[in-house]
């Protein structure tokens, strides 16, 4: 019985995958899509993927699936999750980087993606705000939903999506502008402030939230590139917050920083999860254990195991996870 469901699900997924590849191939990844949200009619077109999703045994409902666990109260049911992904495959040209990943990501919590380098965790993260669109040869197939909405659907505007899903990168990348302008960049392009006072307010709030305000309030006009590494990264976090996103994706945000700066960033992540859904990629297991509520372990492009952090670290289900956590490879 179990086997049968799995098979049909698998078949449906590959079918959906095939469709996805075509649509992905058609658009020239330039982000020049029509202002999608303006024409919701397109959505009425029957999309087989919606049905496939229903047929899948969803995480947290019905049969538990290998590696996907439902015991975080209210955290992992499809309807409660910020992101629901099913059967995600990612290709770089001919090479497949992600294999059939299905993962739920809860809101207002920190989900850590761990695994050895090159395992596809960053690639997966970049699917969540469609950053992979800007890479010519990258193709994403499968189903990724945010608040129940397919973010790869033709009518989704990646520009809008990225405003809602902020991102912090591995290397701090402040723009060569002043600190103020760095933070004000997002609000300005999205038109979040009607006048200067409002913008000042947004910048201050964002900098306060990123725990940077006290350090830079006297030199907002100084270039952002002049800050220390840790400060730069917090500036990038402030920059992401200023757009008032719902999700913040962090791609190894502390890997380029010293331990003290790292501790500050981790503290910050802890505070931010009150308001945001945070997904963090990290190669440091200690960091994942410290900051995350749930942990997903990737290996060679496959999702091996996912669950509450404590459980993944203390009582992993898979031997591979066990081996990785205890440092036998990776």
């Amino acid at each position, binding site marked *: 019985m179990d086997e049968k469901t799995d098979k049909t699900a698998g078949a449906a997924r590959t079918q959906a995958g095939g469709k996805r590849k075509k649509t992905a191939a058609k658009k020239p990844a330039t982000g020049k899509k029509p202002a999608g949200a303006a024409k919701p009619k397109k959505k009425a077109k029957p999309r087989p993927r919606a049905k496939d999703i229903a047929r899948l045994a969803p995480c947290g409902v019905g049969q538990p699936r290998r590696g996907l666990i439902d015991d975080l109260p209210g955290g992992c049911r499809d309807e409660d999750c910020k992101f629901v992904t099913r059967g995600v495959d990612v290709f770089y040209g001919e090479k497949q980087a992600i294999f059939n990943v299905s993962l739920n990501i809860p809101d207002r919590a920190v989900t850590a993606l761990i695994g050895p380098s090159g395992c596809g965790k960053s690639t997966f993260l970049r699917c969540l705000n469609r950053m992979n669109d800007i890479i010519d040869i990258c193709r994403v197939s499968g189903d990724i939903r945010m608040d129940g909405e397919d973010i790869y659907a033709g009518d989704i505007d990646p520009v809008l999506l990225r405003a809602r899903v902020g991102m912090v990168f591995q290397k701090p990348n402040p723009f060569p502008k002043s600190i103020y302008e760095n933070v004000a960049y997002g609000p300005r392009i999205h038109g979040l402030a009607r006048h200067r006072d409002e913008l000042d307010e*947004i910048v201050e709030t964002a900098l306060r939230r990123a725990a940077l305000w006290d350090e830079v309030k006297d030199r907002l006009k100084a270039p952002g590139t002049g800050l220390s590494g840790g400060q730069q990264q917090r500036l990038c976090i402030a920059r992401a917050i200023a757009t008032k996103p719902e999700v913040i994706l962090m791609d190894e945000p502390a890997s380029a920083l010293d331990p003290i700066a790292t501790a500050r960033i981790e503290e910050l992540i802890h505070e931010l999860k009150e308001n945001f859904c945070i997904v963090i990629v990290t190669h440091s297991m200690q960091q994942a254990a410290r900051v995350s509520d749930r942990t997903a372990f990737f290996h060679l492009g496959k999702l091996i195991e996912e669950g509450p952090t404590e459980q993944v670290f203390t009582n992993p289900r898979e031997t591979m996870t066990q081996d990785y956590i205890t440092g036998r490879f990776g």
Partner: protein
Amino acid sequence: MTEPPDSHERIDWTAPQRLTRLRRRHRANRRMQWLGLGAILTAAGLLAVLVLSLLASGLPAFQQSYVTLSFDLKPALVNPQDMRRGKWRKIVRNALFAALPEVKDRRLKRKVFRIVSRAAPYNLRDYVMKHPELVGKTITHQVLLSDPFDQYVKGVIPAHIGAGAQQRFNPRLGGPEVLAAFEKLRRDGRISLRFNRNLFLNADSRLPEQAGLAGAIVGSFLMLLVTFIISFPAGIAAAVYLEEFAPKNRFTDFIEVNINNLAAVPSVVFGLLGLALFIGYAGLPRSTPLVGGMVLSLMTLPTIIIATRAALSAVPPSIREAALGIGASRYQTVLHHVLPVAMPGILTGAIIGMARALGETAPLLLIGMNAFIPDVSGMGISEPATALPTQIYSWADSPERGFVARTSAAILVLLGFLLAMNSTAIWLRQRYGRRTW
């Protein structure tokens, strides 16, 4: 704002004013994209106009029209003892009017004779001098048409110009009777259009129908030879020194600034240098490929040095370390290991430098390398010469209409050479290893 720092305000992205703004932003993005595409299409379009207009005016010059006549090579006219003094003009005249017996009037005859090129008697003479056994016989031979009729055959100029009541006979064709005579020749099948070998075999001439590029091509070749002999070894040596051996100090820094600056000094200034230094001071012969090549080698040197340095710095240091590690000296390392790896990049740079030198005009004008060379045989490194670009300039300046087509054809030949050189460079770059500059 009133929000306390803890509460998290969510933005309603679907609010109408937000969507309007989003649409506006996407419009701006598309505008930028279209502007970019438009810019590229403008550039490509201008290139297309350039190439097409050159093709349109230049392609006819790759064909040449001839008139086939029977020449009676009477010894009395040929003067077999000294053919140079033969009455060749008369022979051609007789042959033409033998084919046109109805033309009797002397004044008309003079006009009709202009159908045949003024070069025709000389061409016939040269032909018979090569085949002395023909003297005394009657031979059928093709001679050049004069430029206006050549153009008329190719359809470049019409028989009538102006429109409606203003329409009149094209004065360049000499009048209706002359044209009638010409049409008779055409009806008799005496006019033929052939591939224009003269364009490549003849040297310059005052007559468009006779003028060719041989002198310019030989001149350019000799000049590039000098340029290559000087700038290629010197450029590589300088680049190897700067990249592999030189200590980083103010002197080498100064050399580097100099090289970068020289790469951007206007070419006409190099011409002045050549004029003042090589011709004025050193007394080298003016107008010669030697001086031209020397001037151009000074211009090409920075290009080669920069390209060679880029190629050398693209060689992975591990190769040097490996060679030094087994006890090779610095020179052995460079000569045996680094240079061979960098060679494709160096050659690419050298070819591109040579291509640029081939197209360079202004310095050659200043050192007088636009001499009128009617004969290829006397050319040499230190003899006056002309080059392809200066030939183009001279022809472009000529008042005769026929030279417009000749100029375009010369440009097409020059562009052909450049295309071949650049394609070789691109091929080298793609065939051997990565992009080095």
